[in-house]
């Protein structure tokens, strides 16, 4: 009897402890709490300052109008996701190929890198009209614009990673008679992985920006299917403010998922061996 009571007490304590540690988990609790507080302040601001809907719509109105416009929004999401994937793929492929060239030939490094820098430093806003003249309205131009915005972090990081291989490991490969090819695949590329993934993370955060910006300037002719960037332009012209907010929210969501995916990938690749992911036990 006494024993059972004691063990029962233990269980309650255990549950309390779990609840406490869950509530105190800063990664979960704080964002939720802050989000709730933010929405409360949102409603409070509307009530307090009598804000009209065309300035700040209430969250539930954004949801309602989002449902009304769901066809346009869904189409926009699909199109923007597609543009993101294309732009991202172009940046990764182009960036990696360029990095390999830059890392492997000092001739390419000296001759090409200044131009890469020039291309990176020319504002895309200036280049966009030219790109549209050359490639027309639509997904081609959007992909190129998004490539111009995203490729640089991949190139800069990957090149550095490929060039900064540990001297001792290079010696090791040389002692055992490795070919250039073996050195590239078994040493330089794995060693550059953490750098490449850092570039990838930055690029992932930039990709939706590229796709959405591309959409606003070149989204008109994307096969009748407008991306979210173009949807935003339309809604704002039509003064559909709650729907505009809904579109902005969805654009955020795409960016969030994209970054999340790349972070997950990075974790998968590096968690066992890289110091940036220390194991807890």
């Amino acid at each position, binding site marked *: 009897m006494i024993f059972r009571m004691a063990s029962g007490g233990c269980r309650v304590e255990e549950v309390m402890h779990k609840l406490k540690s869950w509530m105190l988990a800063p990664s979960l609790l704080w964002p939720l709490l802050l989000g709730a507080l933010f929405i409360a302040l949102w409603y409070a601001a509307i009530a307090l300052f009598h804000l009209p809907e065309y300035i700040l719509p209430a969250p539930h109105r954004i949801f309602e109008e989002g449902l009304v416009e769901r066809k346009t929004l869904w189409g926009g999401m699909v199109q923007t996701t597609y543009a993101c994937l294309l732009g991202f793929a172009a940046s990764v492929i182009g960036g990696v190929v360029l990095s390999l060239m830059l890392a492997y030939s000092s001739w390419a490094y000296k001759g090409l890198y200044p131009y890469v820098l020039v291309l990176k430093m020319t504002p895309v806003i200036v280049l966009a009209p030219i790109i549209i003249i050359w490639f027309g309205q639509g997904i081609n131009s959007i992909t190129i614009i998004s490539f111009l915005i995203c490729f640089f972090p991949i190139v800069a990081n990957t090149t550095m990673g490929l060039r900064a291989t540990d001297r001792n490991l290079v010696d*090791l490969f040389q002692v*055992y*008679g490795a070919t250039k090819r073996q050195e590239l695949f078994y*040493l330089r590329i794995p060693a550059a992985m953490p750098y490449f993934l850092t570039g990838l993370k930055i690029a992932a955060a930039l990709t939706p920006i590229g796709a959405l910006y591309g959409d606003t300037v070149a989204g008109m002719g994307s096969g009748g299917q407008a991306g979210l960037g173009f949807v935003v332009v339309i809604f704002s012209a039509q003064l559909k403010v709650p729907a505009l907010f809904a579109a902005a929210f969805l654009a955020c969501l795409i960016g969030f998922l994209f970054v999340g995916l790349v972070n997950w990938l990075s974790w998968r690749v590096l968690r066992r061996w890289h110091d940036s992911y220390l*194991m807890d036990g």
Partner: protein
Amino acid sequence: MKEDRIDTLVRTMTELQTTPGATTAPVGYLEISGLQKSFGEGPAVLADINLTLARGDFLAVIGPSGCGKSTLLKIIAGLIKASAGSIVFTHSGARADTPSALRRAFVFQDANLLPWATIADNVALPLRLAGYAQAERLARAAAMLELVKLAPASQLYPRELSGGMRMRASLARALATQPELMLLDEPFGALDEMTRDELNEDLLELRERQRWTAVFVTHSVTEAVFLANKVLVLSANPGRMHALLDIDLPYPRTAEMRLMPEFLRLVAMVTASLHSVRVKLS
């Protein structure tokens, strides 16, 4: 070119397998004459190195920091070119001017493992570079890990191991190639004394099985005397041969030998020689 190398290696392996008893396996032979080295236009780092190693010799190289020990080892390994002089490496009857890739193994000062590969994959790396099939290289890596008592760690990553274990893995990687010549650059310098003694004993035990010739760079006189049958004392600026001392202690050597008067006498002799280098320098 590459296939050539694999061929010779495969031939060596079969020789090793068909020879009964590891003690009669072919062991490398090294002859260095008139070796000189300077980097670019800089002053000489090494000068007048003349050295002959018989098969199965264990040479320890000792000398002040910066006297060119690592440089000497890298020249023997073919990692850097000598400015003058020649190195001749004889193996299995054939005489070649440069050591061929898999007949010599190099153990670096730090373990120098690939952080992204498991211990087993790290040990199998030289075999992979030589073009061995996966099944064979994994089998041989497993056998080597057994030999250095690391079998349970084979699927772990280097950062999950202690410094001593990492060094064992590094040794296993070198031994997996069944080398004729082992080049070791202060392999145990970063370890505590107890681990170092233990690894020294293990190293000699492994040599009993594989009978390679060794050039071992160290800062520790006791380590040099315990391992080697010859100790080369280098002076500095440029690194010249100050003395080549014989260590007349029989193999196999045991931990207890470190306490014998004869051992202590030899330690004193090497220490004195090293001291006279310092006196000459100041």
